[in-house]
């Protein structure tokens, strides 16, 4: 374990209440894929973490979950380790959570833990920073939790992401789940969601 530099940025104020609120929002987002959720949590995580990404990882990670940071997110690693006690994952495949700050250099989704047919929950949940998210746009989502189809607009993802997403979706019950974050807003893409581009 590498030495930790104590961050100067504060974590969640009133951690119990704030994390319960964020957890509830994360559940809502996962239950209704493609719904853009705005968090009202007051938080100033260090760059490059957005407010939504910071709130999610501080809520979800604890001392038992390995967290992987991409190169661009390394500068926020100590912040997350200090406030959650989470250990660092050496490899993407070990991670329970992954923070991807540079979404154009996202590792292949299959490089992360996909779980097994017996334990599909032993997979990585990704938190991917993007430029913007909107409840309207060219993407059409369908699947469990969506009545009919739901539109979504995302800017700042690698062009082949949606191709990879199709593969990820087909691997069900294995696969990764993704939170896309931008500023104070986030949207969830569970592995069950079909995305038409």
């Amino acid at each position, binding site marked *: 374990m590498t*030495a930790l*530099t*104590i*961050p*100067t*940025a*504060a*974590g969640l104020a009133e*951690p119990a209440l704030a994390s319960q609120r964020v957890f509830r929002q994360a559940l809502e987002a996962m239950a209704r894929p493609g719904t853009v959720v705005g968090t009202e949590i007051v938080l100033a995580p260090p760059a490059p973490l957005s407010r939504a990404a910071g709130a999610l990882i501080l809520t979800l990670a604890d001392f038992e979950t390995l967290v992987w940071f991409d190169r661009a997110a390394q500068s926020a690693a100590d912040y997350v380790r*200090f*406030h959650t006690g989470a250990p660092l994952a050496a490899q993407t495949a070990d991670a329970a959570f992954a923070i991807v700050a540079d979404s154009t250099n996202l590792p292949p989704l299959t490089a992360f833990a996909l779980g097994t047919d017996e334990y599909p929950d032993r997979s990585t949940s990704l938190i991917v920073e993007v430029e913007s998210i909107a409840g309207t746009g060219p993407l059409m989502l369908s699947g469990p939790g969506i009545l009919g189809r739901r539109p979504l607009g995302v800017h700042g993802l690698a062009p082949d992401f949606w191709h990879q997403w199709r593969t990820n979706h087909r691997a069900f019950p294995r696969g990764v789940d993704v939170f896309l974050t931008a500023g104070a807003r986030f949207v969830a893409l569970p592995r069950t969601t079909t995305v038409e581009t």
Partner: protein
Amino acid sequence: MSDRQTKRAPTALADRQAWLGTLARAPAAALAEAWAGLNPKPGYRCVRGPETGLIMVRGRAGGTGQRFNVGEATVTRCTVALDDGLTGTSYALGRDRERALYAALFDALLQDPARRTVIERDLLDPVRGALVAKESATARKAAATRVDFFTVAREGSE
């Protein structure tokens, strides 16, 4: 910041461990008084806490045996960041949040060489003195009730 932490010499680490121990044992009143006496007071922000929780205290039988859980202890911890970027951390037994906050603040201030001498003189030295006096008083009381066991040899009979 990171340079200051990674390049700290071993003696500096030992120094910090020593003052952290003193701050953890210092009475709340002494810390509050020392903080009140600071002029000017630095700006600061709480990075974590002060928050109260439980820690598992572990020990080794005779100091060398297998590790075992002694029991849980209530501790309050706090981490602060001063406006100049120094961070300070404290852990103290009990639930006194204010005391943990002051201890963390003084930990941060003591890392600033320009302030250390004054704090050593006004806060740490008196507290250390009081702690030593208290310990020796306890030791004296304990010593007064000490029983020396010896065996009376049976007188030889012919």
